[in-house]
């Protein structure tokens, strides 16, 4: 279980102003909301990539920020993070990039054959052909392939938690749908807890067990997808509406 408790974070201006959110073990939680509301900031606080000014993140009851040295490092090993732009290492090929997902000490001790097998399996899970991509540099891959390699790197270490930061941003609808279905399949097959930050609310409603809406630095709504669709909250309705004029009218009325 991942629990965000009263998370506050300000840069020049306050971004998160007391976020409380609970994600049960094995479930998929989608966090949606307007741009600049701090969704990615919230996700990054999970494993200390951004340290909150106040509050705590608890993973299976263990505090990420108040449990002494080494805790964060240990928590990071239990999580896989998929970055918005994939964040693949430019100077490394696909094989080297994916290998980095295995904890350092295990990587050092692992025979080359076993490592190759694990990397290849991870690439197959994300529907990439290892024979075609293993030796390629990130610059030689398409946007969709880079996202998949980023995903392969996140799962190769067999994490218990998968964190997705805008996994479909910049992809065409077909590629976006295939990534969404991949996220759903990984959650089922690997039995991981997934937290997904996205703008694509319609895709999120299909694959998530719960959807949370973050606005003005706090969680405005949390519920199951059907509750999300049926709520009368005008902000949620504005976000769900396929008609841009209605969305704007609802937002202006707020």
């Amino acid at each position, binding site marked *: 279980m991942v629990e965000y408790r009263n998370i506050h974070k300000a840069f020049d201006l306050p971004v998160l102003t007391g976020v409380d959110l609970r994600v049960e073990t094995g479930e998929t939680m989608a966090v949606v909301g307007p741009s600049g509301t701090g969704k990615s900031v919230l996700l*990054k606080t999970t*494993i*200390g*990539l951004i340290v909150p000014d106040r509050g705590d993140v608890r993973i299976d009851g263990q505090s990420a920020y108040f449990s002494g040295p080494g805790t964060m*490092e240990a928590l*990071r*090993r239990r*999580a*896989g*993070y998929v*970055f*918005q*732009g994939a*964040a*693949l*290492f*430019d100077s490394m090929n696909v094989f080297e990039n994916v290998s*980095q*997902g295995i*904890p*350092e000490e295990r990587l050092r001790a692992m025979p080359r054959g076993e490592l190759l097998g694990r990397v290849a399996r991870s690439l197959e899970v994300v529907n990439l052909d290892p024979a075609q991509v293993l030796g390629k540099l990130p610059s030689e891959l398409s946007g969709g392939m880079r996202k998949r390699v980023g995903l392969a*790197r996140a799962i190769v*270490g067999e994490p218990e938690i998968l964190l997705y930061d805008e996994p479909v941003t910049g992809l065409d609808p077909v590629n976006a749908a295939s990534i969404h279905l991949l996220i759903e399949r990984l959650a089922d097959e690997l039995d991981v807890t997934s937290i997904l930050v996205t703008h694509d609310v319609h895709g999120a409603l299909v694959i998530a067990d719960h959807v949370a809406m973050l606005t003005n630095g706090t969680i405005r709504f949390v519920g199951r997808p059907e509750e999300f669709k049926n709520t009368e909250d005008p902000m949620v309705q504005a976000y769900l509406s396929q008609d841009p004029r209605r969305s704007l009218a609802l937002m202006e009325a707020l």
Partner: protein
Amino acid sequence: MNGQGGVGTRALVSWGRTVQNVARHAGRMTHLLIGIVNAFARGRVSFRSVIDQIWWMGVQSIPIVIVTAMLGGIVTSQQGSYQFTGAIPLYILGSVVASSVVLELGPVMTAIVMVGRVGARITAEFGTMKVSEQIDALQSLGRDPVVVLAAPRVAAGILVVPVLVAIANVVGIFTGMVAANLTIGLGSGSFFYGAQLYWHKWDLVYSLTKALAFGFWIPFIAVHMGFETKGGAEGVGKATTSAVVFMTLAVLFLDASMPPIFLN
């Protein structure tokens, strides 16, 4: 009065921001330094990474360092020839060239080359990694960027810059001698007689101590500025420019502050 008050307030705010910025950089640099020392103390730095950096920073810098040192030696020799001819014994030129190269030109010109070739690249590389979330990705994978990226570069800088300065010193003196021979016909025997006349062993120690200081500060500042990069491509450009200015000033300040300490 309001106008004056406004100007005064703005100046105060601007001064306050500068102080805040300096304090922030000082704090972050101290934190980075502690991280690097810790990484070495715990034996976490990969030997292979240090060797890779030595190859890139040191071996691949040798040609440009040699060219720079040759030009420095030639210019010093020619300037000295021009000023000494008909005024003082020409063998003194050997002393002038050797002292100028060993005490100043060798270390400082090598350091400036390293600022441009090594420092700027480190900042641009790390800045790009920062804005494209590759540094975050490293952390998310349980790797410490200070251990993986910063420590090997700083270690390599400390190890290679003194060697490069030693090469620059030898090349600078030798080309100075050749230039003196070709321009005013000063023989190598007379040149080295002059060079030995005012030679102190301490000069070489001083030269290499300076090189050691430059070897630490150049990659250290470059790494720090790279890690501090914000924004997109523009941010990387700004960080790289600031890093080059910061590193150049650091080299010149160190150069100016060392004689009173070491040459008294």
